[in-house]
């Protein structure tokens, strides 16, 4: 390839990377935690802390819901909580082209946030849209496209030396070389993983928009119908207009599970039940559930509402090509196809991804460093500040949301407001702090703050759970909660180690850099001007 072309791709890689990198750091750090979405939900609502009120049966919830919203009978769903948590299920129904939700404690009031206050869902919202409804989702869709372009251009520029230099990690005098090697080896080895995210991320965020555009540009209006048929999991059935008694929902769930297991998958955990024409002779019930150790993890069994006769099975090997590709797309994105081992692998790769974007920005700064001057250009100083402020601010903010959840549970303030205030507040504090203090000092302090903020909720949670854990027999929920706490402590140790490493770098590293400490007299007076 010509040198000029390589330079063009280098430029594309740099700018797409820098533009998308900040957002991708948040998406990957929050995404690594989202791998353990169910465990974080259990951490917040473990069964041993919420057994006070008697649990309402699913059938009674449906009956109460239909008494309040009889018009929803034609098309509504029951969203089941993650297994192992003590949260109640909630209702979903579409009306007037909008999605409506209602929770068990207030069925007459529809809400757009049925899981408000759920920490796991808040972290998921940070992951997919920075917690900003609608606009945030489209923004992250654009970011995913820039990410795709950064991946392609990155491969092109590293292609000439790819095989030769893949495992070359060159520590020594030239630190930039080491960072570049680390960036390249992580980027190349986790490339399949990153390609999955660039594609599925863009698709999930921009789906509605792109489907509409594709439909107009190239499909003459036929695409929405084709898509609906491709993902349909039940045969189309008109209402008979004749009432008939329904099987109880728990019986339907049991039947669906038995039919799903008959296809050869080794488990089927229902997470959603959809009803069409409830109480009609032609009622259809679709039970969606999660199976592990198959790539098409989310499967659906459609049953007749009265007899429980199976109408269609879309589970594991019994899927159509369209259905299994659709389901595998989610499985590959969320790492939900292979039990704990794959979850930990996704967690590790997610954190490595966050490191990839962080190191990319460091390389941008390092390539523009003035080697013979104490004073560094303004733009590299501000890029360093922005990188540290945004990245550590995200870590600090997410840990603060854990703490807010733990301290705010059962108090007068709405929990979701507390979580948002803690996360965005800490993010703002981090960005402000890094702009007003000398960079090397700010980095050290923020890393120490991250360490403390991550360790604190874990320690408090361990302390309040110790009693029930000693008294009661050990279950899967105990393991999930302990896992969340120990992971928090481990991350706190990593932050502590990073704080020590950056303090050492500030003290002993090359003084001609934005990362150097400013103990020397000539810069100590104007730290924010000279860096």
């Amino acid at each position, binding site marked *: 390839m010509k040198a000029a072309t390589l330079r063009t791709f280098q430029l594309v890689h740099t700018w797409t990377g820098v533009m998308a990198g900040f957002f991708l750091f948040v998406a990957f750090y929050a995404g690594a935690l989202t791998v353990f979405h169910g465990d974080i939900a259990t951490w917040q609502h473990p069964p041993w802390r919420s057994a006070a009120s008697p649990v309402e049966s699913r059938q009674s919830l449906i009956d109460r819901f239909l008494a309040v919203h009889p018009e929803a009978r034609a098309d509504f769903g029951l969203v089941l909580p993650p297994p192992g948590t003590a949260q109640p299920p909630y209702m979903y129904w579409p009306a007037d082209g909008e999605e409506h939700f209602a929770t068990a404690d207030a069925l007459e009031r529809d809400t757009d946030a049925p899981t408000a206050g759920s920490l796991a869902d808040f972290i998921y919202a940070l992951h997919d849209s920075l917690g900003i409804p609608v606009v945030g989702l489209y923004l992250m869709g654009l970011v995913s496209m820039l990410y795709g372009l950064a991946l392609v251009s990155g491969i092109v520029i590293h292609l000439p030396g790819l095989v030769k230099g893949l495992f070359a990690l060159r520590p020594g005098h030239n630190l930039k070389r080491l960072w570049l090697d680390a960036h390249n080896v992580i980027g190349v080895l986790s490339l399949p993983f990153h390609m999955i995210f660039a594609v599925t991320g863009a698709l999930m965020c921009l789906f509605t928009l792109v489907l509409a555009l594709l439909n107009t540009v*190239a499909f003459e209006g036929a695409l929405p119908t084709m898509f609906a048929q491709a993902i349909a999991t039940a045969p189309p059935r008109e209402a008979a207009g004749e009432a008939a008694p329904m099987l109880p929902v728990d019986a339907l769930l049991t039947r669906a599970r038995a039919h799903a297991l008959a296809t050869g998958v080794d488990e089927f955990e229902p997470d959603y039940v959809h009803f069409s024409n409830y109480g009609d002779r032609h009622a259809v019930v679709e039970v969606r559930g999660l199976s592990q150790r198959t790539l098409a993890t989310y499967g659906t069994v459609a049953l007749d509402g009265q007899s429980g006769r199976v109408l269609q099975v879309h589970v594991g090997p019994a899927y159509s090509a369209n259905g299994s590709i659709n389901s595998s797309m989610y499985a590959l994105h969320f790492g939900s196809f292979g039990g704990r081992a794959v979850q930990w692998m996704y967690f590790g790769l997610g954190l490595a991804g966050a490191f990839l974007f962080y190191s990319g920005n460091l390389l941008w700064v390092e390539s523009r460093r003035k080697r013979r001057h104490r004073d560094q250009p303004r733009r590299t100083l501000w890029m360093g500040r922005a990188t540290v402020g945004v990245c550590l601010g995200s870590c600090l903010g997410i840990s603060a949301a854990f703490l807010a959840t733990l301290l705010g549970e059962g108090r007068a303030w709405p929990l979701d407001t507390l979580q948002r205030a803690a996360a965005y507040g800490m993010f703002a504090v981090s960005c402000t702090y890094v702009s007003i203090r000398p960079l090397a000092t700010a980095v050290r302090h923020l890393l120490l703050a991250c360490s403390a903020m991550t360790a604190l909720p874990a320690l408090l949670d361990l302390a309040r759970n110790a009693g029930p854990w000693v008294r009661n027999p050990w279950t899967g929920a105990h393991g999930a909660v302990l896992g969340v706490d120990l992971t928090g402590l481990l991350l706190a140790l990593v932050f502590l180690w990073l704080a020590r490493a950056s303090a050492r770098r500030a003290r002993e590293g090359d003084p001609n850099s934005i990362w150097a400490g400013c103990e020397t007299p000539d810069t100590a007076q104007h730290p924010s001007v000279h860096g």
Partner: protein
Amino acid sequence: MIGRCLAGVLLGFPLSAMTLALAMALSPARGAGWVIAALIAFFPLWTGVMAASYLFRSGARAWLVLGLANAAAFALLQGVRLSWSGP
């Protein structure tokens, strides 16, 4: 640089869309069996065109070549559709 970038983004979208539509139109059941795969393939295809458009010598050339490719894809797609409604 910006000319090639815009050509890739703006002309890459309809070109990728019509290429997929054409491939689906020519497959059995008009591609009904692989709609989801086609939707997933759309993004890598579009990104590929965006990246490839930096290989053009200038922005003007990128617009010219991608514009012609779009016109060709459109003509082919209309041709295939006309053959459906024919005898």
